[in-house]
C-alpha cells in the first residue's frame, strides 16, 4: 500500500501540495481537482520523482524518492505528452520494460501484452511521432503496465482520447482495479472519474479537501442541504407533511404537479420520516432521487 503522511511540497514560495495524508488501497481511486490543484505534484511525489519538502511517502514502508526497491511495485503514467519520438510504440514500451528489469524477450512479450491491454492494437507498431494524441496516451498507459506492478499512478490518462478510446481505457482501468491493483487516477473531468470509481480524493489549492465514497463525502458536508427530487401521486399532501419536518429546509414544486424538489439538511432523518409517512398514508411515491449524490455536485459544493 502506498502511504502519504503529512506531505508538503513547496516550489520556493509557491505551495504545490500542503500537508496531505492519504493511502491508496486496492481498487480504483479517483484523484479529482481543477487544473493547478496539485494533482500532478502529488502523483510525482508518490512516484518518487519529487522529494517531499516535509512529510513522507512510502510504499509498504519503503520510502519512494529515488528508491529502486519501492519503484519495483509502481507503474507511473505521466500527464505531459512527452516521448522518445523516433521509436515505435512497442519499442518504447519494451525499452521501459527492460529498465524495469525484464529480459529482452520478456520485455517484448510484455510490451505486446500491455499494448493489447490498453487496446492499442496494430497502432503499437507505428512510430510514436506518427501517432494521434489518443494513441500516445495509450502508449503511456502501456509503459506503466509493462512490468505488471501492483500499484498504478495514472495522471490524466484519458486526455485527448476520442470517445471509443476513452471507453476502452475506462474499462481497462476498472479491470485493473478488479484484479486487485491499487490504481490512482487523476482527472479534472468529474464524469470520467465517476465512470471508473465511486472512491475519490478531492484536491484543491494543494490541500486534500475530502476523501471517501462519493455518497460518504456528500454526507460529510453536513452544513449544506441536499436537493432531493420526489415524484408521487399526491404531491400536495406530501409537501404539507415535509414542510413540518426539521430536516427539511424548503420545498418547491416542479412544472408538473406530481413532482417536487426539497432541500434536506439531514438525509438520514429524512429517509426515516419518509418511510414512516409512506407506511401511514397512501401517497403513491414513484421516484425518490437525491440530486446531489453525484460527483459534480459534491465537487462544486466543496470548492465553492
Amino acid at each position, binding site marked *: 500500500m502506498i502511504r502519504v503522511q503529512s506531505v508538503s511540497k513547496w516550489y520556493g514560495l509557491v505551495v504545490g501540495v500542503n500537508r496531505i495524508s492519504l493511502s491508496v488501497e486496492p481498487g480504483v481511486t479517483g484523484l479529482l481537482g481543477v487544473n493547478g490543484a496539485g494533482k500532478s505534484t502529488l502523483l510525482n511525489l508518490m512516484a518518487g520523482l519529487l522529494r517531499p519538502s516535509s512529510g513522507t511517502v512510502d510504499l509498504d514502508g519503503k520510502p519512494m524518492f529515488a528508491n529502486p*526497491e519501492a519503484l519495483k511495485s509502481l507503474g507511473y503514467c505521466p500527464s505531459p505528452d512527452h516521448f522518445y519520438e523516433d521509436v515505435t510504440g512497442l519499442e518504447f514500451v519494451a525499452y521501459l520494460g*527492460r529498465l524495469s528489469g525484464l529480459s*529482452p524477450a520478456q520485455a517484448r512479450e510484455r510490451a505486446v501484452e500491455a499494448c493489447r491491454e490498453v487496446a492499442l492494437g496494430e497502432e503499437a507498431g507505428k512510430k510514436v511521432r506518427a501517432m494521434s494524441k489518443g494513441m500516445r496516451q495509450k502508449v503511456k498507459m502501456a509503459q506503466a503496465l509493462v512490468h505488471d506492478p501492483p500499484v498504478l499512478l495514472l495522471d490524466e490518462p484519458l486526455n485527448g482520447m476520442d470517445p471509443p478510446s476513452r471507453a476502452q481505457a475506462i474499462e481497462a482501468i476498472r479491470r485493473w482495479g478488479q484484479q486487485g491493483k491499487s490504481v490512482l487516477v487523476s482527472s479534472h473531468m468529474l464524469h470520467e472519474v465517476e465512470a471508473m470509481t465511486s472512491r475519490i480524493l478531492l484536491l484543491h489549492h494543494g490541500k486534500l479537501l475530502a476523501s471517501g465514497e462519493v455518497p460518504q463525502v456528500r454526507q460529510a458536508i453536513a452544513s449544506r442541504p441536499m436537493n432531493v427530487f420526489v415524484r408521487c401521486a399526491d404531491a400536495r399532501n406530501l409537501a404539507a407533511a415535509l414542510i413540518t419536518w426539521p430536516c427539511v429546509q424548503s420545498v418547491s414544486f416542479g412544472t408538473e404537479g406530481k413532482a417536487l424538489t426539497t432541500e434536506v439538511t439531514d438525509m438520514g432523518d429524512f429517509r426515516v420520516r419518509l418511510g414512516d409517512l409512506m407506511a401511514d398514508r397512501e401517497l403513491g411515491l414513484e421516484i425518490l432521487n437525491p440530486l446531489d449524490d453525484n460527483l459534480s455536485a459534491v465537487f462544486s459544493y466543496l470548492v465553492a
Partner: protein
Amino acid sequence: MIEGPVRAIFGFTARGMTCSVKGWLFGLLLVLPWAAALLLRLLIWKGVQVPMGGVTLYGILVLAYVTGFLVPIATLFFGTSLVADEVEGGTLPYLFGRPLRREKIFLAKVAAMTVVLAAGCWLSILGTYLLSLSLDGAGALGRGAGTLLGDLATTALAVAAYGALFAFLGLAMKKPLFWGLIIGFGWENLVAWLPGFLKRLTLLFHLHTLLPHSAAPQGVVQQMLASSESRITALAFLLGYTALFLGLGCVLIRRMEASAAEREGG
C-alpha cells in the same frame, strides 16, 4: 556482469546518438582530417611545394584538431545533453520512475557516449594516419605504429575525461552549453599555457603530456605544456578528474527531482 537495464540504456543512448542530427554532424567532423590529408596528397601530386610531410600533418591533425577541437566540441554537445535532453524532452520521469539506481542511468549514458565518440575519433585518427603517413612511404606506416597506439589511447582517455566533465556540467548548470564552451574552449585553452600549478587544473595540459608524437611545429608547444610532469602523473590526474566528475554527477543525479508538472502547471 552488466545488468540488463544498464545495457538497455547504453544501447538506447548509443542508438540515439548515431541516429541524430548531432550524430551526422559529428560524422562530418570526423572525416575532415581525411579531407586535409587527401588535399595534401593532391597538392604533392600536382607538384606543389608543401612545407610539411605526412608525419607532420598527422601530428598537427591529431594534436590540434582531434584532441584540441574535435574531442572537446563533440563531448561538449553530447555530454551536456545526456541528461539535459531528457529534462527538456520531458522523458526523465520515464527513467526515474523505473526500479534502477539513478547513478547507473547516468553512468550508462556516459559510457555509451564515451564508446561512440571514442570509436568515431579512432576511425578519424586511423584514416588520417593511413592517408598522411603513406605520403612518406609504406615504411612510415610501420614506424609510426607506436605513436598511433599512443594517440588512440590518449584520445580515448580525452573522450572519457571531457565526457565526464561535460556530463557533470549538464547536470550541475542551468545553461550547460554556455558554461561548457567557457570551460572547454576558454579556461582549457588559456590556463593550459600558464606557468605554475594552475595549468594542472586543465585536462588539455595532461592530455598533451600523454600524446606520444612531437612533430616539429608542435615541439615548442608540447615542451611548454608537457615538460613539467611525467606521463604517469598526467594519467593519474586525468583518471582522477574523470572519477571526480563522474562521482559528482552521481551525487547530483541521486538528488535530482524529475517532474513535468512544474513545467506544465499541473
